[in-house]
């Protein structure tokens, strides 16, 4: 049994001909572009269930096809209201596509919809299992910065950079592990939806996803910090 597609209240009507529209992009009766009903989420926009595995090719095709219909360029000579609606709808389309296309953003968005996205209390707080590595890394970063400021020798700088590069590599592997974990939970979620799991089960899954996202965010920031330092040219 497939997960139900989020439905939008069927109380929306066309502003032009008053036919019921069920939140569709265009009125089935007169064809005019419609305003977005409040609460339409990105999944519904694309006519998708709130599942976390998405066929990217199909998504892109749908994106292109909707772009043809909604883009302001094709409303340049239409009335002011239609132009504004096209602007709103196409910005929603672009935002939806951008979010659903990225596997991490997709999860963040889903959690956000359910009110389950809670970022780490302090952004700078290291997850406990990473404390030692993070400590070492921060040490290396400091050493490099100090050496740079006080004019370390070529040999010193090289060895410090090598140390940092090793740390960067380690954290990139960690990041890739976290991503794999996230991918596993995404599949679990989809399976849960398909088998009609209850709210408690779904909440548990979402809590796990939230924790993984926080960990991922932390590791990714570390990787970026190191990358920044290494990119800085040492003369």
């Amino acid at each position, binding site marked *: 049994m497939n997960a139900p597609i989020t439905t939008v209240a069927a109380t929306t009507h066309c502003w032009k001909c008053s036919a019921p529209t069920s939140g569709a992009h265009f009125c089935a009766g007169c064809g005019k572009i419609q305003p977005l009903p409040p609460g339409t989420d990105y999944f519904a926009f694309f006519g998708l269930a709130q599942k976390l595995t998405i066929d990217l090719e199909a998504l892109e095709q749908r994106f292109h*096809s909707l*772009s043809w219909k909604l*883009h302001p360029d094709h409303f340049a000579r239409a009335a002011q209201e239609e132009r504004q609606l096209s602007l709103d709808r196409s910005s929603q389309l*672009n935002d939806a596509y951008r979010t659903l296309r990225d596997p991490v953003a997709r999860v963040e968005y889903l959690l956000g919809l359910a009110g389950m996205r809670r970022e780490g209390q302090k952004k700078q707080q290291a997850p406990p299992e990473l404390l030692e590595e993070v400590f070492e890394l921060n040490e290396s970063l400091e050493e490099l910065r100090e050496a740079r400021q006080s004019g370390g020798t070529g040999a010193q700088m090289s060895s410090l950079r090598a140390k940092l590069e090793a740390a960067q590599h380690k954290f990139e592997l960690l990041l890739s592990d976290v991503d794999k974990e996230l991918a596993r939970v995404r599949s679990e979620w989809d399976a849960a939806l398909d088998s009609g799991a209850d709210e408690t089960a779904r909440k548990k899954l979402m809590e796990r996803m939230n924790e993984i996202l926080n960990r991922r965010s932390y590791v990714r920031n570390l990787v970026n910090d190191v990358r920044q330092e290494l990119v800085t040219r040492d003369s």
Partner: protein
Amino acid sequence: MSVGFHESQITFGFHESLVTGHESLFITQGGTHKNMPRTVGIDLGTTYSLIAYQDKREGRPKCIPGPYGTPLCPSVVSVDADGSIVVGEAARRRLLTQSERTIYSVKRLMGRGPADVQDELKIFPFRIDPASKNVIRVRLGDRVFTPPEISAFILRELKSWADEYFQDAVTRAVITVPAYFNDAQRQATRDAGRLAGLEVLRLVNEPTAAALAYGLHEKKRGRVAVYDFGGGTFDISILKLISTTDGDIYQVLSTNGDTHLGGDDIDNALQALAREEIQSQGVDLSAHPDALQELRKALIAAKHELSSESRTTVKFPLPGGSVYFREIARVEYDRLIHPIVDRTMVPVRQALADAKLTPAEIEEVVLVGGSTRVPLVRATVERYFGRAPHTELNPDEVVALGAAVQADILEGGVADMLLLDVTPLSLGIETMGGVVAKIIPRNSTVPAGAAEMFTTGVENQTGIDIHVLQGEREMAKDCRSLARFQLKVPPGPAGLARIEVKFLIDASGILQVAARDVRTGEEHSVEVQPSYGLDDAEVERMLEESIEFAEQDFSERQLIEARNEAESVLTATHKALAREQAEAPGELSAEERRAIDGAVTALRESLAGTDYKRIRAFVDVLNQATTPLAERMMNRAIGTALEGKNLGQV
């Protein structure tokens, strides 16, 4: 006489042939295009501006030529002593004689404040009025203008070319901007359009416009990199060209650039070198602004030479009588401009990284902009992408042509092409501690939006301040301030007010803001105060003032210009002949003298009439007839200066 056109399409006129005096047929197209509101595409460039339209019959875009027969209008504006505005080639000539009333490269000042351009002032002769606050005001002679007003003069000139060409008024336009232009720079461009009497339907990014023209021409598909190196700005855009059942999609994946980097920088590097060497010859050019412009002109000519020759020579007579004689080899030139070309590769690497592509994955590379004629640029781009870039399309015209195609799309003339562009810079809001919260990331497809909820922090707070910025840095002070606005709320407990603010970047890349009180559902008015631009009231005021400048009829202006040119060329010829007689009698052959006399007479005759095209034609004839004379005079001048000196002393 059968001419093969339907009669309603043509008007006949008769025009005396220049040389033989026979009457010949002079056909203009008018007729069918009357009463059709026409949208044109305009490339408002740093060095040259162009205007183009989609020729429906031929199914392709075409540039509209100006009074000199070329579609290139130098982006130069001059204000004569009587207050009349001169634009284009005529203004460019005034750079050499009235540099304090003339301005070039005004695009560098658009959407920027006085503090932003301090570095530029060291190398560009911009006279910034001290009264400039957040909008730059430039002094030209005894008048003061803002950059959008100056750009509007250029747009008006182009508009007049189109009005003349179509024999009908043009009122709607698509104007191109560098992809990396921020919101303030875009708004300034749109303001310029308004001031020029144009309804600006859309701003299009220059590399994207070029891709449109290129795609139409080549009918290729795949991943394309557009490397656009113009007079003052550099852009790199990575696009995907796709065919779908609905038609062709031009989707921008990423864009990056530098709005302070262009051919002007190459010119300035050459000028810095020349001025230093001239200084050591004992001449200080800073006291001679006109001579500086002559030097700039000579160095630009040398730069153009070096695009096809391996060496060039600059022979520049200095005030005081000596001569600056300098041979420049391509090797030395490359070394001089290497850092400038390297700078272009930084945004290129970033754009590829953002598109998650490697150079090898790019299937086509397109070069746009006059500065891509520089051999070092071509070699660098070819080496980086591992393939020869496309240069079939005229790098000067391709952007205007693409803009014309976009204009046609907007007019509904093309239903099977779609442009999906992106915003180049992240949009953010300043939060506590001066940190920027990004709400729309860079390279988001436009239109793009974000909604943020705002509330009060303390009891009885009556206003919520919002500061909007563009940029990639963490701190607000390192980003570009776009605008500030305040939401007024009635007094109440902290956290009670709930205002949703919607930020929308439209297809032109310009920000729209709308606010809504969530509790009442009512729209909340927002008054945005731009950080670097003209607000609506100022633009309105300028529009009113500009009506006071009763614009002279196009032809009338052209006639005055042509007459001025003729007078100055006649005077110069007269002086030159007298000088030659004094310095080297007998050099001038009887044949040459006859040719010059004939040209002078013909020109004088044409001055009695009102056909400016004819006057111009005879000016050209006289210039040609006096070229050998001018060369001899120049060689004599250099010879005297070099006499008694060896090359080491020169």
